[in-house]
């Protein structure tokens, strides 16, 4: 029993040991004054956006009217862009004092302090003699009294809204660290009519819903459009002549041509990031596989040949790999392969099914539809881990990425009525919102940043 006694005696001097060790630990502590500051994550940036100033009141050929009205409209678009993005609380242009042209580059900070705004966006618009407009945009930090960013653009009268989107992009990029995305366009399918006989038309619009145009009449079913990276073409599926085939349409001239002549049905067209290649899926004898063909036409290359449905496909931004969907394992799952079709590996092991994968333009995530009961938009790493769900509704599907890889657009189907709408959500899961479209919408495709 002496060993037990030994243990117990040593236990009794433990408190003394602890005390002296505490003292010794303190002697090793840092000498300089230091402390932690813990803040909260969920704050929005308050931005004051007064109307843009002008050098002279002049008529313009824009839909907004004179330069003064245009200055108001430009500021309003910047404010709407930032507000819809979430994370920002823009004020103005209504209700804010209107700065004079001289203040645009040297703001009167006294006017803006004490209004609870962190940031100030000021700009000007000038009508050049030739009908073009020059727009300048400046971002200021009110509390530090310093300019953070500035830029300017010359635009034609038909594109004046793009100048406002460029200004919103400048502010957004500077304050968030992300790449811009407001100056971009969306192609989608506009839907009307009863559930068993929906009329589906190809349509395009700006990222904020403006400049909306229909490209087909709806007499034949149009599905799954894809904007080309240079915005000069749109790939889409049409049931022209009762046979589903892939067509390329020029949105400016409305001219269409068949992507590839075949007696088999073709679905699921996709562009490569450089716009030189097109992926499509073709069904032969009930078996669907993915093919690659030069965008200008030529000989297709077969990429998959499993006895199942291999469909879709999305290139990684470096153009080296393709993520696609296959049910070769018995249910729809997500696979990755090299661009030549080799090295096909499954990456989705989440339970349920995984469909419609899309590689982020940033390369760091793959968005997809996770089907486990409900249809939910989710993201995962390209290796297949770090699953995060972004939505939780009855049926959300077909994600498409904003050009900066931060926001995902998808369409939501209502249970029962089957009516559809375009929705967006931020990568953090915040700011889920419905886009305003003239009628119902589905199959969105977000184009890249316009140069």
């Amino acid at each position, binding site marked *: 029993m002496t060993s037990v006694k030994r243990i117990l005696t040593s236990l009794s001097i433990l408190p003394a040991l602890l005390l002296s060790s505490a003292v010794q630990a303190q002697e090793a502590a840092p000498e300089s004054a230091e402390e932690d500051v813990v803040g909260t994550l969920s704050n929005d940036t308050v931005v004051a956006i007064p109307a843009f100033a002008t050098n002279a009141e002049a008529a313009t050929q824009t839909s907004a009217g004179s330069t003064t009205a245009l200055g108001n409209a430009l500021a309003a678009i910047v404010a709407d862009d930032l507000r819809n993005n979430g994370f920002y609380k823009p004020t103005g242009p209504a209700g804010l004092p209107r700065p004079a042209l001289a203040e645009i580059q040297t703001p009167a900070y006294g006017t803006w302090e004490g209004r609870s705004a962190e940031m100030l966006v000021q700009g000007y618009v000038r009508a050049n003699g030739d009908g073009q407009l020059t727009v300048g945009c400046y971002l200021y930090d009110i509390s530090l009294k310093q300019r953070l960013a500035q830029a300017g653009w010359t635009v034609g009268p038909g594109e004046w809204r793009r100048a406002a989107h460029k200004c919103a992009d400048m502010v957004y990029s500077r304050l968030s660290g992300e790449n811009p995305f407001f100056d971009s366009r969306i192609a989608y399918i506009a839907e009307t009519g009863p559930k068993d006989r929906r009329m589906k038309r190809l349509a395009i619009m700006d990222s904020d819903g403006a400049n909306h145009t229909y490209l087909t009449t709806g007499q034949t079913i149009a599905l799954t459009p894809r904007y080309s990276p240079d915005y000069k073409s749109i790939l889409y599926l049409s049931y022209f002549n009762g046979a589903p085939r892939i067509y390329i349409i020029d949105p400016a001239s409305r001219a269409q041509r068949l992507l590839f002549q075949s007696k088999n049905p073709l679905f699921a067209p996709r562009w490569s990031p450089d716009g030189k290649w097109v992926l499509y899926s073709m*069904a032969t004898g009930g078996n669907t596989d993915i093919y690659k063909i030069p965008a200008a036409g030529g000989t297709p290359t077969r990429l998959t040949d499993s006895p199942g449905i291999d*469909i879709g496909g999305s290139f990684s931004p470096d153009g080296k790999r393709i993520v696609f969907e296959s049910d070769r394992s018995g249910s729809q799952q997500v696979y990755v392969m090299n661009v030549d079709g080799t090295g096909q590996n499954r990456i989705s092991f989440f339970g349920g099914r995984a469909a419609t994968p899309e590689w982020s333009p940033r390369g760091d995530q793959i968005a997809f539809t996770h089907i486990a009961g409900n249809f939910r938009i989710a993201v995962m790493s390209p290796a297949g881990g770090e699953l995060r769900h972004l939505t939780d509704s009855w*049926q959300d599907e077909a994600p498409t990425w904003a050009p900066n890889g931060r926001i995902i657009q998808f369409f939501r189907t209502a249970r029962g009525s089957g009516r559809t709408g375009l929705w967006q959500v931020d990568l953090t899961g915040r700011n889920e919102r419905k886009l305003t479209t003239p009628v119902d919408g589905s199959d969105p495709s977000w184009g890249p940043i316009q140069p």
Partner: protein
Amino acid sequence: MGTDSTLNALTPGGADTKLNKKEIAMPVQTRGGALALTLLGSVALSACASKAPKQLPPDPGAAVSTDTSGGAGMGVATPGSQADFVATMMGQDTILFDTDRYNIDSTDQTALAAQAAWLIKYPAKRATIEGHADERGTREYNLALGERRANSARNYLLSLGVDAARLGTVSYGKERPVALGSDEDSWSRNRRAVTVTID
């Protein structure tokens, strides 16, 4: 601080052109379906009438088939037409599938046997087999699944002796449901392959 930074020139956008009407009228299948529905409806209504109307309504079948003799009466389809096919099949022109499945079960076999019999009886007729899926799937996958189902039915008909050149397939995915609810009963009726003969 002084002057503007570098300006980027943006090229002006092109003017909108008028849309050219390029697409043709509705596909064949919808016309045949509407006709079949009209004829079936008129047959049903005629059975319900309790007294003869003062004036006979015009013959709804006169406008469609040039073979139909005028005054042949309502509800009698021309033998060998799509209307006749639908009437003869009495629902067996459609076969159903389980979720994500595309196999031909015994009920399907019976229906397809009936279809094959009719097709063999009228050897000049071609047909399209439409494959459909329920709304509880993603759009592109459902297009491929519908194609798989149509192809399954087609293969079975071929095995019963129908000539391959006569049968075509088309998939509508989830675009053309017949049942409009969002419940298992509606979905089970939408997971189908429908054989439509071409007049």
